[in-house]
């Protein structure tokens, strides 16, 4: 098991987060606390879900408000800052190099090397061994790590990206509609991946559209509308109808 998943119970809290684009409030005084497990954000288009994720990943800076990880306030100026405190984003295009192997992709930018006479040489054997473990941890059926990523299905590619993020110290994993491009079977496989990530005390923050899936999977759900958090639920206290009501504004 990697150092990533041993960090038990990371929390991320936002206090009074506000972000304006011109005169439009994308986020207006938003407060939340995300803890271990799957935290789902649902809401209609333009509700501010993506802006919230972008702020957490360091891509967008809020006009005001603060973010804290495990109770400690953090200033996320860039994606690098976010990564440094253990927040990792899974991009929709996954940021994989399709012609390269699963193993190469997992280690891209963080290759393991051995030194011979001061010359650094790739330590393939070590990387392959670690890659096998990282893939085994997320319990998804996967070909050998030497296989090129382009031969993988969409779900398998996503699993590679998740394995990479979790293995390299992601305490908090951000997902923006991760199953939008997947077929039903792939979606099921991907949620299996997520479940095992969550079982290992990972904190996952996911923007989701598939409400039944969200209800089934999530440990916590927040509903956003027009830049506000309009409701917070545990999955057992709510239903698809209730969530939809809050999303469109007919319930309050």
């Amino acid at each position, binding site marked *: 098991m990697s150092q990533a998943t041993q960090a038990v119970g990371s929390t991320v809290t936002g206090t009074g987060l506000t972000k304006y684009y011109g005169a439009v409030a994308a986020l207006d005084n938003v407060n939340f606390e995300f803890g271990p497990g799957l935290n789902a954000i649902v809401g209609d288009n333009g509700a501010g879900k993506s802006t919230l994720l972008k702020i957490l990943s360091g891509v967008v800076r809020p006009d005001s408000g603060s973010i804290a990880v495990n109770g400690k306030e953090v200033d996320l100026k860039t*994606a*690098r800052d976010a*990564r440094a405190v253990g927040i990792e984003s899974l*991009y929709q*295009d996954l*940021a*994989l*190099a*399709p*012609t*390269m192997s699963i193993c*190469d*992709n997992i*280690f*891209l*930018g*963080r*290759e393991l*090397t051995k030194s011979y006479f001061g010359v*650094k*040489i*790739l330590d393939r054997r070590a990387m392959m061994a670690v890659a096998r473990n990282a893939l085994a941890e997320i319990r998804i059926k996967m070909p050998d790590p030497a296989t*090129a990523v*382009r*031969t*993988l*299905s*969409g779900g398998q*590619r996503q699993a590679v990206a998740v394995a990479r993020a979790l293995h390299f110290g992601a305490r908090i994993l951000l997902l923006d509609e991760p199953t939008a*491009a*997947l*077929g039903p079977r*792939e979606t099921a496989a991907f949620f299996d991946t997520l479940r095992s990530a969550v079982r290992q005390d990972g904190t996952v923050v996911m923007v989701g559209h598939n409400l039944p899936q969200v209800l089934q999977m999530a440990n916590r759900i927040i509903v956003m509308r027009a830049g506000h958090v309009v409701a917070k639920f545990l999955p057992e206290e709510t239903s698809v109808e209730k969530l939809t009501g809050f999303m469109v504004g007919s319930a309050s």
Partner: protein
Amino acid sequence: MLLAVLVLVSVVFSLIAPGFATVGSLDNILVVAVPVALLAMGESLAIYSGGIDLSVGAMLGLGGMSGGAIMSGLYHGQTGTDIGLMLLGLGVALAVGLVGGLFNGFVIGKLKLEPLIVTLGTLGIFGGAADLISGGEPLSSFPPSSFELGNGSLVGFLPILVAIGIVVLFLFLFVERMTTLGRHIFALGANRDALVRAGVTPNGVILWVYALAGVAAAFAGFLKASQFQTATPIAGQNTLLLGVAAVVIGGAPLTGGEGTVLGAGLGAILISVLENGFVELGLQSYWQVVAVGALVIVAVYVSQVQQRRKTFGYRHRVRAGTVPAGLMLDEGGSEEHAT
């Protein structure tokens, strides 16, 4: 498969051209292949990285001219300083290659310009500079050790040029397979964003790629000048075509992200076999250029078909009848979701 083609072509030539299958002919094929192979190996890195270097042919001419100018300028038949002069010429040629290559890399990386256009520009700059060195005249009267470098043999039968080619091949293979730089070059060509998000700055990788391409090209130029004991600004004529051809014939797609310098080396040998075979058949050597040009087009086609086959979802769509085998038109992006 490339190896099979190489063997097939060689067998055909030895059957129809009696002079082809001799030891002398084999040596000659390899010697002729070396400068093209050096050029192709440098070009390989540029192509793996998703770019291209059109200036390598011009750099071959400039490398030969700058090294040649040093040697012919300082050598006046004296003895004793012979090898030193040759090494000085070599050093100057490699330095010129390095500077030119770094310039390419700097402009492409820092100013974020298309490699195709940048290196088209430096093709002109390097070519013009090679002419300026001597007012377009060829240079000669080099120290004897440069003749030895270009025409001598090790242990009696292994031409020094071929030995150099083998050493450089191993160096490039090392970079390609055993180093972090190699991984980053491929990643840059496969998906630049993936590399950036992995925390690697592409500019450093780009500098390395074009610097190595420049040095390899200038080295090829110096070796060619040593072999013929003449440096001429037009030494690089057609060599850009041959270099890119060797890479493409070697199986590297121009879209970047994959390939091996081993393929580029074999491609260079195949090109040399064609030239030799045509000469042995009594055809004009111009036919080689025609044949290589045609071969490039065939190789690009074969490589495209292979690309499609390697990608997820291809077989499924062939079975479903939505694409005829080998003729799938959409590339990249949409493919992964095609189930």
